[in-house]
């Protein structure tokens, strides 16, 4: 503890944690996702789909056992920090420390560097996968919770936001979400995990959809009406017939996770953000 009851955390500890998470998240598919894939092998009716799911499970086993990234797209490093308000970072710039962790993790961990410096004109690879996309939430306490969620381009490109009228209601939300997954088809490497944000503002709703993907596959929104909507959407999406890798089948999505927030009386923003069947994320608490 430093003076005034503040807990001092050296930014080099943040660098070390981010480095470890970048490598580990890319090689270790979350166990809840593995469980859902194992159940899908049993329930999938398409023989081709069943075989694809088996090969995906085999891939995830090799990745974990041999320390190889499950997917070659090791993504942009999404870094989410939950920082206790009684934490004092010492030893340097926090954001620079996070990027240093990404640099070390992606370089020393043999991960792919997938960022370009300028989106439109130059498009030159930055060479070390920085900068990370960093989001910080300040919360009560003295802890720092760091989550790294590498996000691949294929599934990310299938995202969408709609500013619906409140009159569109539950049916409007369902229609938008199901249509997004249908349009995405085979592109985002199904079976997918569907992150849905509802409410907030134009910018906030996209972040809600992304944060929904951090919840484990199989978890439910604590609010029963949203939990029910998650289940209904999953059923609707799995009627689309897209199936594993889009070759046709019953397993188009493994889960639908919804996060919601209050919004303006005139608005009902909805966002969809997809994860593939790898959907990596890992957390460390300092």
């Amino acid at each position: 503890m430093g003076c005034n009851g503040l807990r001092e955390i050296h930014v080099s500890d943040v660098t070390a944690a981010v480095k470890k998470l970048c490598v580990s998240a890319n090689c270790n598919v979350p166990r809840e996702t593995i469980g859902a894939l194992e159940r899908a092998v049993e329930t999938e009716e398409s023989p081709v789909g069943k075989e694809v799911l088996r090969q995906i499970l085999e891939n995830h086993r090799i990745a974990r056992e041999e320390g190889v990234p499950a997917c070659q797209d090791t993504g942009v490093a999404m870094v989410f920090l939950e920082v206790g308000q009684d934490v004092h970072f010492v030893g340097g710039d926090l954001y620079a420390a996070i990027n240093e962790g990404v640099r070390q993790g992606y370089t020393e961990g043999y991960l792919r560097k997938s960022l370009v410096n300028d989106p439109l004109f130059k498009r030159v690879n930055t060479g070390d996968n920085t900068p990370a996309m960093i989001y910080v939430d300040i919360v009560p306490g003295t802890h720092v919770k760091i989550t790294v969620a590498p996000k691949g381009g294929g599934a990310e490109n299938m995202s969408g936001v709609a500013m619906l009228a409140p009159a569109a209601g539950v049916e409007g939300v369902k229609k938008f979400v199901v249509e997004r997954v249908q349009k995405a088809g085979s592109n985002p490497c199904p079976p997918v995990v569907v992150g849905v944000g509802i409410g907030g503002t134009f910018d906030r709703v996209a972040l809600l959809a992304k944060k929904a993907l951090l919840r484990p596959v199989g978890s439910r929104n604590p609010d029963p009406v949203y939990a029910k909507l998650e289940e209904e959407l999953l059923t609707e999406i799995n009627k689309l017939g897209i199936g594993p890798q889009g070759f046709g089948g019953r397993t188009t999505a493994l889960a639908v996770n919804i996060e919601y927030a209050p919004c303006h009386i005139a608005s009902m923003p909805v966002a969809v953000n997809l994860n593939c069947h790898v959907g990596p994320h890992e957390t460390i608490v300092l």
Partner: protein
Amino acid sequence: MAIEISTPLTDEVVARLKAGDNVRISGILYTARDAAHKRLVALLAEGKELPFDIRGQIIYYVGPTPARPGRPIGSAGPTTSYRMDSYAPILMEHGLKGMIGKGSRSQDVREAMVRCKAVYFAAIGGAGALLAKCVKASELVAYEDLGPEAIRKLTVEGFPAVVVNDIYGNDLYEEGVRKYRVS
């Protein structure tokens, strides 16, 4: 049962392949994705030679992770193919016979496949660790400055893929979804 095929692809081999067929590919695959395609097509527009002889070849849409010491390649699964749709027809017109990626192709690309007798295969997206096991050697061909997007010549053995679009205009994605869709 998977059909064993080897590169370069001939018209006879391509004619045998039907949408839905499982294949195991052995021989050479050239890697290229967005940035490399842009450069290849620019060369053709200027009437210049490509950095490799494209006739009869297969391009694999992949940007692998770096190889660990002692290994030929890192994780190496397919990337989404539609991003190469605007470049693919002209490459087929110059002799490209196969493409490996994931996800559906545009009408233009599908028509070019019928016209030029070329096929489109899908490999399992997100199975980069598994697919890398089939890669026996990797050699830089061009555009090292593009990093993961450089063109590499991969020697593969028994690389598993599925025929999505054949030269007869069939499309596995459309057929598969039609079969399992609940309306």
